[in-house]
């Protein structure tokens, strides 16, 4: 099946800093999503972005499908951005299941 790798696994930043999270995938995809799991365990869908660039406030994401990666940018980090960020993809071949990466744990220090 398709492999999804996220980097870095852990990131600790001061409030106000910017960060870039990366998601690499091993095969062509028709579906890519970014999620934030907050410290209370809720999974929030940030972006549905199989290709191109999207922005939502301080967050933006870019997927370069031909090169099999996606980037999530967080600007002017706030403590509420802490949590685990997951990338998930559906490969073009296979049974259409959404496969998750292992996540990036982001900790924002006040």
């Amino acid at each position: 099946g398709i492999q999804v790798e996220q980097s870095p696994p852990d990131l600790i930043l001061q409030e106000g800093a910017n960060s870039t999270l990366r998601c690499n995938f091993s095969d062509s995809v028709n579906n890519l999503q970014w999620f934030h799991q907050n410290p209370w365990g809720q999974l929030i869908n940030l972006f549905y972005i199989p290709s191109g660039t999207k922005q939502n406030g301080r967050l933006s994401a870019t997927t370069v499908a031909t090169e099999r990666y996606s980037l999530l940018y967080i600007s002017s980090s706030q403590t509420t951005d802490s949590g685990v960020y997951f990338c998930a993809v559906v490969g073009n071949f296979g049974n259409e299941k959404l496969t998750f990466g292992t996540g990036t744990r982001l900790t924002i220090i006040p």
Partner: protein
Amino acid sequence: DTAVSQTPKYLVTQMGNDKSIKCEQNLGHDTMYWYKQDSKKFLKIMFSYNNKELIINETVPNRFSPKSPDKAHLNLHINSLELGDSAVYFCASSHHRARVTFGSGTRLTVV
């Protein structure tokens, strides 16, 4: 509120018991899922239903049985619970298998 809601939020039970987790979505989505998140936070799909039809059934023990009475509901029944079943179970839904919305999770602890 439009959402995916699952109950109960917490479930503590003894080995060998049978339990159910219920899930409902009022988003008008046509596809529903069950995911399992283990202690290392890894998320893996268990089942997926599209318009009440099972379309994904991962390698899950047959003690786990999903039931979809209609497009808005997908329940998960677990027989003969084992210690290794302890995890957080998430229900989710999407429209045309696109953007996925998750419920708040059920933390199952088997003692």
